[in-house]
């Protein structure tokens, strides 16, 4: 085939080629790559970029018959309605409350768990705990919520059994607004802590052991070694994951909140994504729902960019 000859002549002789010339040349040589990528390109155009164009809905009064383009513009009316709505601050408070709470609890716990596991002296126990700890991650949200309602049953749930043993009264956990966030967050910790710890465990394994040997000879205790050797070494990993988590601050998992939500705990369990679903698909208020969803995405993006910039300035570590 002549292909080998072509790839050998990669270097252009003499003058610099223009962009279009280079593109033409590249197309000739790498056309199979373009063919391979074509289905992906079509997929992204249809399922990611066409919906992005659909965001126009947020500024329109959508009429099914007229389509997206034909519907009349309403400017920022949907946004104004959302911001001045009776439940705007409630939604914001619930959404941010749940995500900040889970970040504040789940994030450090994963790190602590990884370090403790790393320093565990019984190898068999270590392997068992590790293997068992990430099993819950693969259980579906539906099953998790079903299990929660079993364990939190007001009559015979195990949590109430324990409460009764301690002399406290039974609580219908899932029906009390005040419990919702804690249930959401701590069941999330149970489900995700082993999984989130994996990445720290692998970066802890990469810590240069000579440093530890030197520290041991100098008489450092394990806690001192953790504080002065391990934590500084895994700091870049920690910061990267923190930025990524911050970028998802406003995207609390819809599924789990939706599944745990009921009329009784509605005051604390209604978040932006469940609201978008309700007004959009249940009430068919398409334009308004799109506007609320867009607001959510933009805040997320803003937090991500801010977190990334701050992290880069402060520590030199960043996602991009």
């Amino acid at each position, binding site marked *: 085939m002549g292909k080998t000859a072509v790839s050998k002549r990669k270097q252009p002789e003499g003058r610099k080629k223009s962009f279009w010339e280079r593109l033409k040349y590249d197309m000739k040589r*790498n056309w199979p790559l373009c063919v391979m990528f074509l289905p992906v390109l079509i997929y992204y155009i249809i399922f990611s970029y066409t919906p992005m164009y659909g965001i126009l809905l947020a500024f329109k009064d959508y009429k099914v018959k007229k389509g997206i383009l034909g519907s009349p513009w309403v400017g920022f009316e949907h946004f104004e309605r959302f911001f001045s709505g009776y439940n705007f601050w409630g939604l914001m408070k619930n959404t941010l409350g749940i995500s900040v709470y889970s970040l504040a609890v789940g994030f450090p716990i994963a790190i602590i768990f990884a370090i403790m596991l790393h320093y565990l002296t019984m190898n068999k126990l270590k392997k068992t705990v590790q293997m068992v700890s990430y099993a819950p991650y693969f259980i579906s949200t539906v099953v998790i919520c079903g*299990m929660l309602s079993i364990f939190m049953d007001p009559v015979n749930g195990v949590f109430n059994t324990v409460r009764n043993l301690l002399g406290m009264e039974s609580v219908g956990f899932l029906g009390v607004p005040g419990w919702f966030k804690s249930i959401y967050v701590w069941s999330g910790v149970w489900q995700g802590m082993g999984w989130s710890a994996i990445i720290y465990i692998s970066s802890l394994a990469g810590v240069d052991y000579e440093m530890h040997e030197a520290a041991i000879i100098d008489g450092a205790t394990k806690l001192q070694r953790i504080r002065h050797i391990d934590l500084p070494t895994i700091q870049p990993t920690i910061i990267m994951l923190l930025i990524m988590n911050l970028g998802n601050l406003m995207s609390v998992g819809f599924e789990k909140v939706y599944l745990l939500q009921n009329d009784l705990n509605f005051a604390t369990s209604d978040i932006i994504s469940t609201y978008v679903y309700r007004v959009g698909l249940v009430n068919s208020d398409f334009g308004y729902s799109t506007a609320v969803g867009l607001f959510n*995405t933009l805040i997320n993006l803003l937090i991500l960019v801010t977190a990334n910039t701050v992290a880069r300035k402060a520590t030199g570590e960043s996602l991009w």
Partner: protein
Amino acid sequence: MVKRKKHRILSNSPSDRLFDIFNIAVMIVLLFIFVWPLWFVVIASFSDPYAVWAGKVLLWPVDFTLKGYQELVKYRAIWIGYRNTIFYTVAGTLINMIMTVLCAYPLSRKDWMLRNFFMKMCLITMYFNGGLIPTYLVLRRLHMINTVWAMMIPCALAFSNVLIVRSYFINSIPGELFEAANMDGAGPFQYLFKVVIPLSKPVMAVVCLYYAVAHWNDYYTALIYISNRELVPLQTVLREVLMSAASIAESMHNASESAAMLMQQKQELAQSLKYTSIIAGIVPMMIAYPFVQKYFVKGVMVGAIKG
């Protein structure tokens, strides 16, 4: 000393001893917290519903019975759900894998001029999307609502998985192989299918598992796009079973005597179905889990390498 396992080296200071003992204690408690809820569901599914209801079942099955499983076998909706979910998982994962390779391989080729442009195009979709309604409208326009395609096509590609595969292609497949294949006259397609993919089995396994688990556990997609009873996945059926048990229990509290009798029967059925249906939902995963869990870990590590 060098040959010894690193963390076996114990220093003898009292504070370290204390640390170790505390650590072991915490881990044993954690082990219990991780295992017991799952264990409870298993033993409750084999126990008499009344014993479970009365809170007698704690560590072992009480009044061993298979009644719950008999009810499960008779419950038609579960089987429809199972059939659909197996189909969605197998076909969906196949589509996912094809798309992922087709996306990851070109993006791993440094000599492709369009690479950076398309890379950016894909990355944008990770952080920004049209949202619920615009996506729904696109699917409606394509007449995908209430079809099996809605369960598999909109989620045909997860870019985070593409990044894992791509960084494996870049970091673990030696570039000389490409030169060699080129010399032998193998085209890019041949090179991809005969050289790259066979060499990437570990990462393929990982990503395949990620996709399969996602399909198996998917509830959201069906909630939004599927209302046809013949097409709903297992998770939707599970949700109904679990909810009906709860709602019957609630209405029992404030029902009259005669109605309560009838409800008690319903309640019994719902109670015994509750645990067995959870088992039905997680058992395929739990069987596969010990064999595949080492791959999951590998996947996180591969994904952590910046491409």
